[in-house]
């Protein structure tokens, strides 16, 4: 057996089996459950969304960048659908007391650029204001493994306590 043949055979033999390794996997209860959730997500009404009984998002707020005023948007996203957004201009870390979600400082331009690229790939049809970059961070507090999407304003990056309070209220805090 040539060395490459040995490689190919060894590779195939080394594959660990998984629960999906049978021809009728798509007919299983697991597959049906996942497909149901796909249908739920794509059938969700615009602007809201359902995700396993948890809150998903909040309505977006307006802002006036030129005047240095910004609102903030936070999306609590665990399901595939990003539903609603609250725009955020925070540079400091925030904690939503109720939902237990930590919003991390995302003022680093490199992180913002990288994350906005990922955002654009995954949700290109999501209305994202031109003035904002998007970042995705895992939720650290709360432990539910969800994702928090924070969109900061490029300008006027100052703390706005009213936004923090509004954000906390909006996401269940």
């Amino acid at each position, binding site marked *: 057996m040539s060395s490459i043949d040995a490689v190919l055979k060894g590779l195939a033999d080394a594959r660990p089996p998984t629960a999906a390794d049978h021809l009728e996997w798509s007919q299983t209860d697991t597959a049906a*459950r996942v497909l149901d959730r796909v249908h739920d997500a794509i059938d969700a009404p615009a602007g809201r969304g359902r995700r396993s009984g948890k809150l998903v998002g909040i309505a977006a707020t307006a802002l006036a960048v030129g005047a240095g005023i910004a609102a903030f948007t936070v999306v609590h996203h665990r399901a595939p659908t990003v539903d609603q957004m609250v725009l955020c201009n925070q540079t400091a870390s925030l904690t939503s007391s109720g939902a237990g979600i930590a919003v991390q400082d995302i003022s680093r331009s490199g992180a913002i650029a990288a994350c906005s690229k990922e955002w654009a790939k995954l949700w290109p049809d999501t209305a994202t204001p031109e003035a904002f970059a998007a970042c995705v961070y895992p939720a650290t507090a709360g432990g539910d493994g969800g994702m928090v999407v924070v969109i900061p304003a490029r300008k006027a990056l100052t703390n706005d306590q009213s936004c923090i309070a509004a954000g906390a209220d909006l996401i269940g805090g």
Partner: protein
Amino acid sequence: MSHATDQRLVDLWFREHSARVFSYLLHRTDQQTAEDLLQEVFVIAFRKAYAVPEQPLGWLFATARRVLANHTRGRTRQQHMLSQLRVAENVKPVVDDIAATHARWSFFELLGQLSETDQEILTLAAWYGLSPAEAAQALDCRPNTYSVRLHRARQRLADLIHQAGDHTTHLPTPSEVLHVVD
């Protein structure tokens, strides 16, 4: 395309390809997360149905890689793919064939000495049956580039096999390493 048409397409893609995408995810994360990410892949497929090629498998794998990367981004420790496999609850040991199991794990050890990129390149075809074009799409590179990388990765693995020869290091038994799945 209409909502209904897109949904029918997604159902078709799910029926034909979800098992392989799910296997890919199961090899890299726990079952619950794999289910969540599988859902995400097909919701994205619905939203971007206009961009999904007629043969969607490569595109689905590319999407699965991205959602997995997003899921793990920011975590304190980036887990090596094979270390994930070692402790994956969904990996079944071949306990009734110890020799085969040890052979598998010997090869597995060698595979683990390669870079994650090489592992990905080698396993996309060998473990999930992707064609060169599909694998290239999954890796977001040109087919020629993929072919060159594949050749080099296979050669590197062949070199490791040759160096290993008949010498085997101590390998843990399946019950020591793996979680048996009922």
